[in-house]
């Protein structure tokens, strides 16, 4: 299954990735990162089509997209 990885220490919790994900597979964590933001997290085992929309909108370039062949 395709998935994304989020570099949580660079994430500012802006939520732009959450609104574009067609699979609703991204959420904000309840935890804080070192900068004090609630980072985005990929819901474990959630659907991902590797469409890259989240990557496109992320201002902090902290999303990496992995595609299952």
């Amino acid at each position, binding site marked *: 299954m*395709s*998935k994304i990885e989020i570099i949580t*220490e*660079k994430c*500012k*919790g*802006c*939520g*732009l990735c959450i*609104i*574009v994900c067609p699979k609703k597979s991204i959420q904000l964590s309840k935890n804080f990162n070192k*900068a004090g*933001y609630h980072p985005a997290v990929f819901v474990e085992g959630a659907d991902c089509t*590797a469409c*890259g*929309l989240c*990557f*496109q*909108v*992320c*201002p*902090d*370039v902290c*999303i*990496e*997209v*992995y*595609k*299952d*062949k």
Partner: protein
Amino acid sequence: MKKILSKTESLKATPHLYCPGCGHGIIHRLVAESIDELGLREKTIGIAPVGCAVFAYDYFNFDVSEAPHGRPPAVATGIKRVRPDKIVFTYQGDGDLAAIGTAETIHAANRGENITVIFVNNANYGMTGGQMAPTTLIGQKTATSPYGRDPKREGYPMKVCELLSSLEGVAYLERVSVSNPKNIISAKRAIKKAFQNQVDGKGFSLVEVLSQCPVDWGMTPQNSIKWVEDVFVKAFPLGVYKDKK
């Protein structure tokens, strides 16, 4: 599993100091990807502005020169003329390019300097706390237009692409936005073309990017992209304003 999307070599891993949701970060990625796809990283020299992007040298993984406020096109002219083999671009906000640097912008364009200009229009002075810029919309509230911009008092929003389109020396002008994935992909195409034009020696190319500034606009990131789509683009229509063959 194959990694298909991540930052490219021209962007450092350094975290950006921009506010959450700020358009600058997206535009940095598009510039970096364009340079990497064209294989230009080792011969690129960027000129950073005064403004929120003043630390661009910390984010880009190629040579970057700082310039006094508004003067990147003059610095770029000098560098490109002594090193025509380099790819030289400026990265400027609207306060930088369209207020204090108006003369440098217009004359570099009019001379047809073979440089690339990435113009980030966020309708205010971001770094200093959201003051009115020449590009502020009619009725838009800012720190220095608390009742909204009134054209009788402050004049009209300055439309840089339209203004420069009459100049003979200009090769390419396009206005894009980074409010959603479709617009971001279109912005990438425009930025890449503006660099390709320089490789091809076509002359002055400028891409105006309408960019969200959620913090100084007093909006959530979500509302700021909505404002770009509902209000900003109505005052500053997207499109190609010049494309010399």
